[in-house]
């Protein structure tokens, strides 16, 4: 286990972590703003992957297909949000159970439509090569995923910090009542954030496909990782989601390499440490 081992897993962990960010950013923003724990977030990812791979199989461009996956999950998410979820803001348990029911329905629909066999997804041809640094092999596509997630993070940060809408969202997070009082359309902020979260996760499905592939139950496997990200980073914090994704991505990669049977247990370590020393998470505020 020399330097190569560490570098290889570190790069792999970063790539996986940036994927996690695509799921966890929506999770943390939706929670921070609406107090909705959206357990359908990983199911969005899965559905997005299947929609995307079907479109790719019919000759659609990879990036377009991935965006289409995001649009589909966003539409579905907004439908459920406007029909049911929006009524239960002050009631985190009800909204949580609704998203769980929704996730069950989506999972079963995916199984009904696409069957139980795993689908592997190949990256777009011009990114399917691998880079070699000495003995170190690193697929180009992993770098692309890191770059895309970084881009998404930048867009989210700019939108939150530099636009009027972002100001309204942050005001609603800080003090919803006060924001309503000064005339902020809080409901619109809710709508936009839920849409963005569902879109990014759905888009992430195909983008992450070459790394995770797509199969029923994948969403269940991603859920503990996404939640660990939110706990470590701090619930409601976007910077927290970014740092948390990288930490959990790395811990997961090394956990899988060093203790293949116990990799889920290794993510327990950062979670327990955070809860012991900083229960609100790295960037979170006490709830």
């Amino acid at each position: 286990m020399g330097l190569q081992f560490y570098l290889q897993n570190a790069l792999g962990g970063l790539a996986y972590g940036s994927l996690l960010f695509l799921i966890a950013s929506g999770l943390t923003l939706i929670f921070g703003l609406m107090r909705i724990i959206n357990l359908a977030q990983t199911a969005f990812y899965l559905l997005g992957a299947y929609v995307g791979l079907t479109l790719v199989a019919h000759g659609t461009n990879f990036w377009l297909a991935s965006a289409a996956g995001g649009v589909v999950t966003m539409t579905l998410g907004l439908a459920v949000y406007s029909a049911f979820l929006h009524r239960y803001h002050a009631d985190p348990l009800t909204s949580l159970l609704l998203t769980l029911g929704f996730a069950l329905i989506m999972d079963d629909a995916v199984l009904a439509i696409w069957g139980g066999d795993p689908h592997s997804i190949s990256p777009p041809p011009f990114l399917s090569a691998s880079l070699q640094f000495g003995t170190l092999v690193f697929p180009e596509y992993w770098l692309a995923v890191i770059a895309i997630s970084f881009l998404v993070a930048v867009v989210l940060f700019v939108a939150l910090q530099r636009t009027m809408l972002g100001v309204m969202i942050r005001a609603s997070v800080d003090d919803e009542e006060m924001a309503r009082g000064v005339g902020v359309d809080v409901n619109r902020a809710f709508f936009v954030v839920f849409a963005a979260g569902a879109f990014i996760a759905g888009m992430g499905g195909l983008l992450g496909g070459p790394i995770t592939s797509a199969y029923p139950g994948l969403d269940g496997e991603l859920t503990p990782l996404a939640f660990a990200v939110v706990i470590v980073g701090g619930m409601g914090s976007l910077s927290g989601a970014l740092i948390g994704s990288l930490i959990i991505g790395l811990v997961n990669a090394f956990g899988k390499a060093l203790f293949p049977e116990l990799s889920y247990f290794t993510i327990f370590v950062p979670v327990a440490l955070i809860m012991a020393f900083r229960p609100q998470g790295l960037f979170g505020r006490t709830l």
Partner: protein
Amino acid sequence: LSLRRRWTVAVVAGLVVALLLPKLGVPTFYISLLTQTWIFAIVAMSLDLLVGFTGLVNFSQAALFGVGAYAVAIGATRFHVTAFVPVVALGIVSAIVTAAIFGLVALRSEGVGFIIITIALNEIVWGLAYQWVSVSGGDNGITGIVRPPAGPFDVSANTGYYYVCLAFFVVALLLLLVLVRSPFGLVLKGVRETPRRMRALGYNVWLYRYLALMISGGFAGLAGVLFAWYNQFVGPVALSLDQSTQILIMVILGGIGTLYGQVLGAFVVVFLSNELSAVTQRWEMVLGVVYFVVVMYAPGGLVVLIPRVWARLRGKRTALVPHEPLLAAGGAVANAPAEAAEES
């Protein structure tokens, strides 16, 4: 008849019917579904102790349940622990130890934070069962668990085992009812309603929550043991997040904070999921719809809904759905009085 008398009559009648059912020629299939009902009623009651009486919405109850079940399987296949009493003790103790570890981590926060952390904890334990193939058998689980005789009774047949589970259910219900009416239980209710006030009165809120979590874990572990013997098999599904949710749905459907209502919740969920899976392959989808219906139209549970429907049928105008959140923003649970609102 006074209310108390009516209750006594209902309980005794229910018990007699439950005892006689296997003798009345009820098909074995339904006897085994009822056996499952008793088992899930125990774990649902254990969760109600946390949700309804302590104000902790624990999403890792299936993990505690599953640890009890895996303890039976691993104890039997690796360490040759197969006698009745040692296995039950092993299952309960393993679940209590797991709850003690969970508590150290999860009780650092409360309310919604507690929910998020217990979701993660449940999924981590599920991941262990799923991936630690050399110990847990991975996705294939562990087969070949044999039911030992309960003292002089042979319980290898369904009917015998039905009585074992019924007995454990009755004992668990009585123990929990005594517990929530004891001074300890009253402190728990105080903790549920206004943790801050209890702190000001000098109670160690953390400690009471921690103890409640371990007691709940013990009962969940017991149910896990019974479940492993019932199926004679344990797999990771037993401790999945879906399982945790189903247990919570039983609690809500029965009526949060009632204990006796949970047997109703368990009955409905067990029968519904079995009947559904017999009728359609898409039963998970239907189950998802059931979640929607339960939390939106029966958040107070059947113990609230049935009398209201009854009143409606007799021409009284009552709202069917109580307008209270299941879990208020501060972390207190629905049927806690309004003073919880001043907490946040």
